[in-house]
């Protein structure tokens, strides 16, 4: 079993002692809460401090060597696609030099429709290869591939939204990973639940409909906590996913 070293533990206890009282307001309508209670703002602040005590706390990995590769690998993954399959498809496209502007439909279709052999030797077909090939073909034949706005996170995200198959969540994911951006957030059901429990969301809004509004509230929460929204997002997401059942139970008690 892993335990924190004594010094880290004492530093964390000291940090906890210095937090504002649980009834103090962190932001309008949101109190700090008790750091010893899971899912309160004070709890998340302590998780952040604990995370930052590590030697190499931030771990956002770019999967591609170029922005175009990054977009392609994100288009190939997600939506319930096992990451191994998405990465196998990405690997094949790279090896065949198909992640280039103006690629032909036939080459792309052939590469996507042939079964992929995974590391365990198992052969699998990429699900929805027809639809995903269409997305890739459209992307790789966009006329403005030479002018992807990688100088600005918000411009990049807006540009990504012009690609078929990419919504706000995926566009934000690519933007954060590529530009290490703290002005966008990757929101999903786990962040939504965390927001409801911490109090920075008032009700369960539809993420697709209210993404930007919810993103703004999340970013305001991180500003108030004085934490990097990107790192906080990763911390919250991981913990909420691990404690899914407990979080749902806690939510029932808050309603």
């Amino acid at each position, binding site marked *: 079993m892993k335990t924190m070293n004594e010094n880290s*533990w004492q530093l964390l206890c000291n940090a906890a002692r210095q937090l504002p009282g649980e009834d103090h307001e962190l932001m309008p309508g949101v109190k700090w809460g008790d750091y010893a209670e*899971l899912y309160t703002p004070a709890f998340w602040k*302590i998780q952040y401090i604990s995370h930052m005590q590590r030697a190499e706390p931030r771990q956002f990995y770019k999967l591609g060597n170029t922005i175009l590769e990054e977009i392609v690998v994100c288009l190939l993954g997600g939506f319930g696609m096992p990451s191994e399959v998405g990465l196998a498809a990405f690997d094949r496209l790279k090896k065949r030099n198909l992640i280039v502007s103006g690629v032909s439909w036939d080459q792309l279709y052939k590469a996507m429709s042939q079964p992929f052999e995974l590391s365990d030797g198992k052969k699998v077909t990429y699900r929805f290869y027809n639809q995903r090939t269409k997305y890739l073909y459209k992307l790789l034949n966009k006329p403005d591939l030479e002018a992807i706005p990688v100088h600005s996170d918000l411009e990049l995200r807006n540009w990504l939204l012009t690609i078929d198959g990419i919504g706000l969540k995926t566009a934000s994911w690519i933007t954060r990973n590529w530009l290490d951006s703290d002005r966008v957030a990757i929101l999903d059901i786990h962040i939504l639940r965390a927001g409801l429990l911490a109090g920075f969301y008032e009700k369960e809004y539809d993420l697709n409909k209210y993404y930007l509004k919810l993103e703004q509230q999340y970013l305001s929460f991180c500003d108030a906590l004085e934490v990097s929204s990107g790192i906080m997002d990763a911390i919250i*997401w991981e*913990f909420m996913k*691990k404690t899914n059942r*407990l979080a749902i*139970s806690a939510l029932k008690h808050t309603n």
Partner: protein
Amino acid sequence: MSGNDNNDFSTGSGGSSQQDCRTLSGQGTIMSPVPAVLATLSVGEYLDITLRTVTSLQGVTASGQVVGGVFVNPSSLQSAIIACINDGNEYQGRITSLVGGSCELIITAK
């Protein structure tokens, strides 16, 4: 997707297994203990670790007096203990230090 790997005391989706529950242990601190109760405690004594709310823990003396909320780190240990208590397991905290108005504990299954 967006996650980082953490120190792992995970019990999956917040559930528990009996094996995990019996072997869970770690450090905890009661940082704002009730002074009158704190004054009655001594190192080596055991407290019951029980649910204070659905998402937090507390230390309770053998006579049933609440000492205060328990701060546990890593947080995945706290969530695992809560899940195990919800599944009927019991925990205790052995007092290892009573310095500076706080109460340090080593938490183990009963």
